[in-house]
């Protein structure tokens, strides 16, 4: 890819989205409020995860449920390298001796976690990439179930259904924000790359894409691997932020949230992925405060639980009915700003 050509075309989108992350992270750091800092770190990790999904789903048009499974692979893999040796005896009592001595710097471990997720994705996904529509969605769901079942029952490596603990708290605001910005750039570069363009063409019309000579399964495969890599990185970051987790963290609930962020924002654009994450995370935190307030006020006989999920579900339904392509369905935010400015200039010159 010609980088100067790419930057000339997309500098405004990249500047805007990078600016959003930097402003939020900078603001949280300056204010120094712990809750705000936690929310911002979570938001940045979510951007990494949503970008991973966008790379595949947004460009190929194929809904993938497997994504969160690769987040789990990344989280568990990275944990194997960062849980201190003494702690491993307690956290992973059945761990294979050959893995007991593994140790890496957390940053390197998170990267290795991403790579392991990518390698597993490469090995298992190629036959699935020939499928489209419902068949592709169902097989991706099956893949999520396989990954979840392995995490649930491979006690030697994951501690089974029990919580894995002992990860060092490594993911801070700077690391999470840097990863989010990098993920945005990677997503944008991929979207505008030759592979990204061919993939987007196949999303639009598979028959026409084949008729111009595009190798659709191979393009999808590459996007799937990159998406799994980002998901693995996101998992590693999250694991080293939360420091203890169980396999249930990488299943349907998380899938639904990440999918909701992408669908509401607009899966086809990087701007949609980022803005969707910002909006949903912001709404979630707002609703959580409302939920807590309602519970403290004891307005109802029981506890108010699940308000956030219900609102997210309703928001997804509303977006799919009223604006099926999401808030940013086709154009990146930079292009929209440029077009609007051009339109204003033309109007004023008439």
């Amino acid at each position, binding site marked *: 890819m*010609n980088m100067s050509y790419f930057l000339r075309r997309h500098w405004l989108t990249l500047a805007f989205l990078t600016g959003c992350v930097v402003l939020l992270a900078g603001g949280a750091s300056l204010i120094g409020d712990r809750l705000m800092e936690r929310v911002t770190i979570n938001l940045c990790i979510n951007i990494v995860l949503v970008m991973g999904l966008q790379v595949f789903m947004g460009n190929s048009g194929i809904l993938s449920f497997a994504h969160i499974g690769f987040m789990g692979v990344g989280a568990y893999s990275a944990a194997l390298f960062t849980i201190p040796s003494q702690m491993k005896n307690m956290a992973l009592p059945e761990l294979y001796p050959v893995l007991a001595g593994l140790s890496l710097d957390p940053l390197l471990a998170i990267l290795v976690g991403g790579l392991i997720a990518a390698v597993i994705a490469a090995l298992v996904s190629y036959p699935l990439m020939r499928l489209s529509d419902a068949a592709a969605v169902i097989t991706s769901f099956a893949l999520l179930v396989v990954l979840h079942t392995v995490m649930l029952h491979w006690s030697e490596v994951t501690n089974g259904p029990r919580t894995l603990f002992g990860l060092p708290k490594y993911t801070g605001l700077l690391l999470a924000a840097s990863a989010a910005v990098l993920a945005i750039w990677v997503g944008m570069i991929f979207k505008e790359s*030759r592979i990204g*363009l061919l993939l987007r063409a196949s999303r*639009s*019309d598979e*028959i026409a894409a084949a008729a*111009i*000579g595009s190798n659709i399964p191979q393009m999808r495969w590459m996007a799937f691997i990159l998406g799994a890599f980002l998901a693995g990185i996101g998992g590693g970051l999250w694991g080293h932020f939360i420091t203890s987790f169980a396999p249930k963290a990488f299943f349907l609930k998380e899938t639904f949230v990440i999918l909701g962020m992408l669908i509401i924002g607009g899966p086809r654009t990087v701007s949609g992925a980022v803005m969707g994450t910002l909006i949903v995370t912001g709404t979630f935190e707002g609703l959580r405060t409302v939920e807590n307030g309602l519970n403290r006020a004891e307005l109802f006989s029981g506890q108010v639980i699940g308000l956030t999920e219900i609102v997210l579900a309703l928001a997804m339904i509303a977006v799919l009915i009223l604006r099926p392509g999401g808030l940013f369905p086709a154009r990146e935010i930079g292009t929209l700003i440029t077009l609007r400015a051009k339109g204003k200039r033309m109007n004023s010159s008439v």
Partner: protein
Amino acid sequence: MTTASLDVQTLSVQFSGLMALDQLSLRLAEGEILGLIGPNGSGKTTCVNAITGQVPIARGQISLKGQSLSGLTPREIALAGVMRSFQIVRLFDDLSVQENVEISTLVRGTRRLEAHKKSRSLLEMFGLWDRAEDLAGDLSYGQKRRVEIARALIANPHFLLLDEPAAGMNEQESADLMTLLSDLPKAYGLGLLIIDHDMHLITQLCHRVHVIASGQTIAEGSAAEVIQDPAVISAYLGTAPGEGDKRGA
């Protein structure tokens, strides 16, 4: 026989019992414009679909410059140098007009900047440069047709198969397209196969015309020859002039 040709030999295509193409043979040389005409349902589009690998062939042989294309995927056939347009235009609606065109050369390994330059010159040639940044889905039908042809052309194909390229165009657009198409074989050294119902376009543009009905060849030759062929007249009108009288006699 020169080898620079696209040869279809005794091609048969069957759709669950219906013989859509029955032992059809035709040949298209580089630099030539061949018209493929016939009544509705005669098998013209099926012929293009079979050549480009979109439908499986039951019998027969398709070869490009002596190399068999039979059994290859649409992708492999496109990369071998046979490009097409579709009867119902198939653009990538949510890509820009320029991306729609440059994508065909990117798939062949051209660098992005080079693809950008090539697509620009083609879009200028087709009078669409001012719409380059627009989404392809926002174009008029006639403009979409031109983008589809530009998308095929940028791949430098040996043979270009156009399925009703003038459909949906007004008279002026159709005339402009005709001028454009007539120059292509010389400018690009390609063979052009055109399916169309517009007999004016076919007679003005094509060096040879191949007529099929019910999946079989009923006539071939120059445009002037085939339009006088009784079998062709019969296929289009039901009976050839005078034939009914003879039968009645």
